[in-house]
């Protein structure tokens, strides 16, 4: 084993570099985030609603002593009918943004998935939200008939974008 492993790895590198994604569902689509951007996945802890924040900010929660903001991307990007709410048991992906951690609620347990980097196709220009300056969709991966939208979280989660707030 010990001998064969490096060679097979080398082969993989030669063929194509693999990247690991954490895949989750928002609305009807599947989304992926590079694993190095995900700090941890956990059952959503108790959330304290915070007054004076937009409604897609679910509030703040205590994640192992870190107090982080928890946001609902389905609500932020209107991927879910307005009258439907989150299930009582949900999961939270703690994402490492540039200089803070933020939690994203998802309905189902996120799954890891390895894909070769070459299958991630660049997104057509017009799909990008023109209101958001940074291109936060890294690309689209087609895996066994599934379509996974790969997000570049640090770009998506810049404080002004995600909070729809003006800096102080």
């Amino acid at each position: 084993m010990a001998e064969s492993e490096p060679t097979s790895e080398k082969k993989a590198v030669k063929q194509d570099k693999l990247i690991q994604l954490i895949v989750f569902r928002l609305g009807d689509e599947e989304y992926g985030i590079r694993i190095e951007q995900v700090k941890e996945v956990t059952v959503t802890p108790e959330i304290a609603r915070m007054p004076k924040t937009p409604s897609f900010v679910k509030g703040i929660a205590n994640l192992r002593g870190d107090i982080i903001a928890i946001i609902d991307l389905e609500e932020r990007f209107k991927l879910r009918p307005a009258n439907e709410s989150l299930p009582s048991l949900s999961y939270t992906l703690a994402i490492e943004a540039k200089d803070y951690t933020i939690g994203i609620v998802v309905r189902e347990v996120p799954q890891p998935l390895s894909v070769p980097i070459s299958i991630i196709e660049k997104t057509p220009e017009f799909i990008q939200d023109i209101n958001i300056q940074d291109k936060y969709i890294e690309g689209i991966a087609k895996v066994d008939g599934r379509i996974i939208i790969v997000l570049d979280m640090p770009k998506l989660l810049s404080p002004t974008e995600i909070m729809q707030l003006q800096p102080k």
Partner: protein
Amino acid sequence: MKSREEEYREIFMAEALEYYDAMSRHISELEKDPGDEKALHELFRLMHNLKANARAMGFNAIGEVAHRMETIFGLIRSKERTFSGSMVPVLFDGIDTIGSLIRGLDQEDEITTDPEQLLENLDLLVQGEEPILEGEDKNADEDATRKLELSDLVYIQIKKLDHLLNLVGELIIDRDRILTLSQEIGNPALQAAASHLFRIADDLQYSVMDARLVNVGSLFNKFPRVVRDVAVAEKKEVELTINGQDIQIDRNILQIITDALLHLVRNAIGHGLETPEERQRAGKPERGSLTLSAQTERDDVLIQVIDDGKGIDVEQVRRKAVERGLVSAEASRTLDTNAVRAFLFEPGFSMAKEVTDISGRGVGLDVVKLAIDSLGGQLRVDSILGQGTTFTLVLPTSIAVKGALLFELEERSYAIPLMHTDSVVSLQPKQLHVVGGILMARLLGENIPVVDLRKLLHNGDSPLAPALKAELVGRQDIIIVNYNNRKLGLIVDRFLRQQDIVIKPMSKPLDMIDLFGGVTLLGSGQVCLVIDVPALTRLFLARRP
């Protein structure tokens, strides 16, 4: 506890030994390459600093050696001498002597190195004469017995201490939780263990807080120079008095108030103190007096900037406030002096008639106010026209723990720092009156506006609907908060208790919402938002009907 002098000596030694290590390194570099200007420059600089520090501490032997060495390195630098020949062993010997003199400082009974021979040799070198070198044997002997020593002090990045304090904060929260649980479960062994944990965690917390304390003097001592420069630029004569340098305060608090204090001192010289001629005419001594003082008051540290200048003209402030549209001319007449002085802390409010280099650029006392607010402190101003002004900064000793009042609103717990809480009252609806759409309570002869906190926190940023007495049912629990001499009553659902809390700063990106000063975790594990009273007061002013 060690005495202050002992502590200073240890700090000096640690620093000096560090210099010594660096000197040893640089002189070896210089020996290898006598043209190494960087090493030479460093040696000169280190000698200079060591000389200054040693003389300030009264360690004259070290000061003398360093002084002569500095002179010689200066001569080498200006190419009047070259680092060669008999000079080399003398300079090496000089650095070794400095090393053993420094180490000798904490061994009072042992005979320390006598630098007389060395001083003579150094003097000879300065004069350009040959030094008297002793036999090599002695040196070889010394080298064989040379000991390597490590310093007793460690330098530590404040970041690491911050991290440590955060961890202790976590521990305190968990400790409270365990204590709560142990009382619920009621197992005696568990209770004993929990109360032991309580004591240890308490000790740990105070030890970590203690490790972060520095003397106020470390900031105050930078002011003589600042005062001199500002006084020269403003053509004023200033006598600076500094008191209470020994008062200890958290290093980060001192860091945060640095700019505020600088601002107040500049203001005092620029606007407070008069020119020598004006002072003479007013029958005051020509030299203005400026005092920086620190003292402790209960758990707080009071820092004062006192001048004996012309004082604040309340009537002028009143006029200016009306001009700026901060208050109507009619309302301004009824305000007392304290309320009028509070305008000084409004953003952009400057009393300067002319713009000078030092102050009066429209950056006003609001900057000072904001810095103090961010610490949960208070800023007060007292002034007697013609006699002087005193600014008082009331600061917490430590950032970590603050007394807070816990209350409930819509089934969630919130905390308000006690620093900004005036009192709590329970009133019946008939004790409240609606004046101009705002609820008013009359307490101890004062009219205090009261607002339903629930309404203030919700419904966007639009103005509040005028208050209706009919909406009030039953007893109202009201917290009276006090900020900048303005009182405001907040109707909450229920008072919970008073408690010391550890405030964690709001993490990004939520720190953009300034309404909350941070969060704390309760013994139950629940996240509790800490209300920022200054921001809440501003919100009320912006939304009042």
